[in-house]
C-alpha cells in the first residue's frame, strides 16, 4: 500500500516555464497506471517515490514506512526505500553480463542465498542462455525481462515502471504485458506504471490516474474513466472521443430526456443533471459508439446528415472522418457493405450520450 501526497515546484526561469506538481493518491496491490501527456509530471511522481527527487512538501508512505515527510524532514535515501525501478532505457549496467547485473542487485541478500536466487530469476525470466552476455548483445525483450528481474530480485515492496514498453515492437509489447501480469500474479508486488499509451492502461491497469500539468484530473478503473471522463480536459487527454460543440435545447428530468442541437440537427439524450437549457456544451462520444448509415430521404431520430471527408484504413477496421470533425469506427465488413454510399447519416447512441 502506497500513499503519496507530493508537492514540488520548479520556479519559472528565463529559459524554462516552471512547473508545479501537486498530487495526492494511494494505490493498493495490483497495477496502478499514471497516465498523462509528456510534461504532466508522471516521471517526477515516480522519481519522488523512488527518492531521486525531494518534494517540497507532503508525505510518502509505503506500507507502514515513512519514505518522505515534509513536516519532519524525513527523506530516506533511495537505497533504503525498497522500491524497485524499471527505467525507460532499462539502465542495465553495460559493463556487466546479465548474470552480473542480477548478482549486483542480489548482494543485499544473505551470501548463501544469492547464487540460488540469481539462477532462479534467470530461469524464471528465460534468460539462462543469455546469462553470460552483456546487455548490448541481447534483444530488447531480453533486456526488458532482465531489468524487471533485476528490480525484483531484492523483493521490493513496490515496483515503479517508467514507460517500460516504450521501445518495444508490437509483438514484444504483447509479450511484455503477459510477463507483467504473470509477475503481478506471482510476486504480488504492487506496481506503479507510467505511460501515455491508452491501450497500455487498459491492458495492465486496475486503476488509472490521469495527470495533466502536474495535477490529478481523474482517477478510477480505466473502463470507468473512459466511459465517464470527468471533464473536457480528460476527454481530450484520452484522445478517444469525438468532441462536438452543441447547445442544450430541452431538459426533462421527469422523463429523463433531453435534446441537444448539433449543427442544424437535434438529437436526443438522457437528462443531464447540472446543466441548464441553452448551455453550450460538448457532446462526448467515442467513434465506436456512433453508427454510420446510408442516407435515404430525411434523417430519422438521433440522426445527422454528414459528408464523408475520408476513410482511413486501420488495423482493426476502418475509421470514417466526416464533416464537422466527427469520426466513426466501422468493422471492415460494415464498411465493405456501405462503401458505395453517396450520402451518409450518423446515428447517435441516445441513452448513452454524454455532454461535458
Amino acid at each position, binding site marked *: 500500500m502506497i500513499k503519496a501526497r507530493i508537492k514540488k515546484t520548479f520556479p519559472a526561469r528565463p529559459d524554462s516555464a516552471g512547473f508545479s506538481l501537486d498530487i495526492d493518491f494511494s494505490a493498493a496491490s495490483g497495477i496502478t497506471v499514471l497516465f498523462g501527456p509528456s510534461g504532466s509530471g508522471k516521471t517526477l511522481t515516480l522519481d519522488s517515490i523512488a527518492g531521486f527527487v525531494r518534494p517540497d512538501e507532503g508525505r510518502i508512505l509505503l506500507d507502514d514506512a515513512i519514505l518522505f515527510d515534509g513536516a519532519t524532514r524525513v527523506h530516506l*535515501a533511495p*537505497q533504503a526505500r525498497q*522500491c524497485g525501478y524499471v527505467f525507460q532505457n532499462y*539502465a542495465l*549496467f553495460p559493463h556487466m553480463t546479465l548474470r552480473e547485473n542480477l548478482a*549486483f542487485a542480489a548482494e543485499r541478500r544473505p551470501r548463501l542465498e544469492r547464487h540460488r536466487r540469481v539462477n532462479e530469476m534467470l530461469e524464471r525470466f528465460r534468460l539462462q542462455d543469455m546469462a553470460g552476455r552483456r546487455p548490448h548483445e541481447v534483444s530488447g525483450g531480453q533486456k526488458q525481462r532482465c531489468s524487471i528481474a*533485476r528490480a525484483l530480485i531484492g523483493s521490493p515492496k513496490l515496483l515503479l515502471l517508467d514507460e517500460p514498453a516504450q521501445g518495444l515492437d508490437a509483438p514484444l509489447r504483447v509479450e511484455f504485458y503477459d510477463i507483467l501480469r504473470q509477475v503481478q500474479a506471482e510476486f504480488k508486488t504492487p506496481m506503479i506504471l507510467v505511460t501515455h499509451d491508452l491501450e497500455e492502461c487498459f491492458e495492465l491497469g486496475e486503476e488509472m490516474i490521469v495527470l495533466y500539468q502536474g495535477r490529478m484530473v481523474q482517477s478510477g478503473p480505466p473502463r470507468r474513466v473512459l466511459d465517464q471522463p470527468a471533464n473536457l480536459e480528460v476527454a481530450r487527454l484520452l484522445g478517444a472521443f469525438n468532441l462536438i460543440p452543441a447547445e442544450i435545447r430541452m431538459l426533462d428530468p421527469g422523463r429523463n430526456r433531453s435534446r441537444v442541437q448539433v449543427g442544424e440537427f437535434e438529437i436526443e439524450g438522457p437528462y443531464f443533471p447540472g446543466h441548464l437549457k441553452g448551455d453550450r456544451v460538448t457532446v462526448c462520444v467515442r467513434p465506436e459508439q456512433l453508427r454510420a448509415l446510408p442516407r435515404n430521404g430525411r434523417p430519422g431520430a438521433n440522426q445527422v446528415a454528414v459528408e464523408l471527408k475520408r476513410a482511413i484504413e486501420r488495423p482493426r477496421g476502418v475509421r470514417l472522418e466526416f464533416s464537422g470533425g466527427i469520426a466513426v469506427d466501422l468493422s471492415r465488413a460494415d464498411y465493405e457493405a456501405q462503401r458505395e454510399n453517396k450520402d451518409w447519416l450518423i446515428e447517435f447512441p441516445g441513452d448513452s450520450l454524454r455532454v461535458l
Partner: protein
Amino acid sequence: MTIDWFPLWLSLRVALVATALGVAAGISIAYLLANREFRFKDALDAAVTLPLVLPPTVLGYYLLVVIGRESPIGQIWEKMFGSPLVFTWKAAVAAAFLRSFPLLVKSSRAALENVDRSYERAARTLGASEWKLFCRVTLPLARRPIYAATALAFAQALGDFGATLMVAGNIPDRTQTMALAIYDAVEAGNGFLARVLVLVISALALIILTFANRLAPAVVKR
C-alpha cells in the same frame, strides 16, 4: 661517446609516481565536483585549474613556499625522514604532480559526469551504497576517458621543466630529469647529447599520445 641515461630513468620514475598520485587525487576531487554541492565549489574548480595557466616559475615558487625547509610541511618531512624534501627527486615528483593534476581533475570530472545518471539511480534503487556504486558502476563506465587522461598526464609530467628546476634543482645524477639534461647539454654545447635526448623524449611522447588517442574515442556500448 657514452650517454648517461640516468635522466631518462629519473624522468620516468618521477612521472610514474606523480601520475599515480595525480590519478588518486584527481578522481577524488573530480568526484566531489561532479556529485556534491558545496560552497566555494566554483572556487575549488578554478583553483585546481590554476596550474594549467600559471607560469612554471610561479608554481615552483608556491611549491617552495609549501614544501620548503621553512614551511610546516617541509619541517614535518625533515623530522620524519631526517633530510629535507626540497632538492630531492621527491620534490621533482611534487612539481610534476602539480603540472599534470589539473588535466586529470578536468578530464575525470567530465568522464564521471558523462556517465548516464540512470545507471547510478538504478544502482541506488538496488540498494548499493554510494561507495559501491562509484567503484562498480560509475568508475568502470568512465574508465576509458580516464585512462586516456592518465596517459596524457603522464606525458605532461614527463616534460616539466620550470617548477622542477625551482624545487628540485638541477643536480646531475640526483635530480636532473630529461628536460633539465637537455637544457644542460645545449648550454654546454653538447649537440649530440641534446639531439639524442630530444629524439628520445619526443618519441616517448608520441607513443604515449597515440596510445591515449586510441583509448579516448571508444564509447561504452549499450
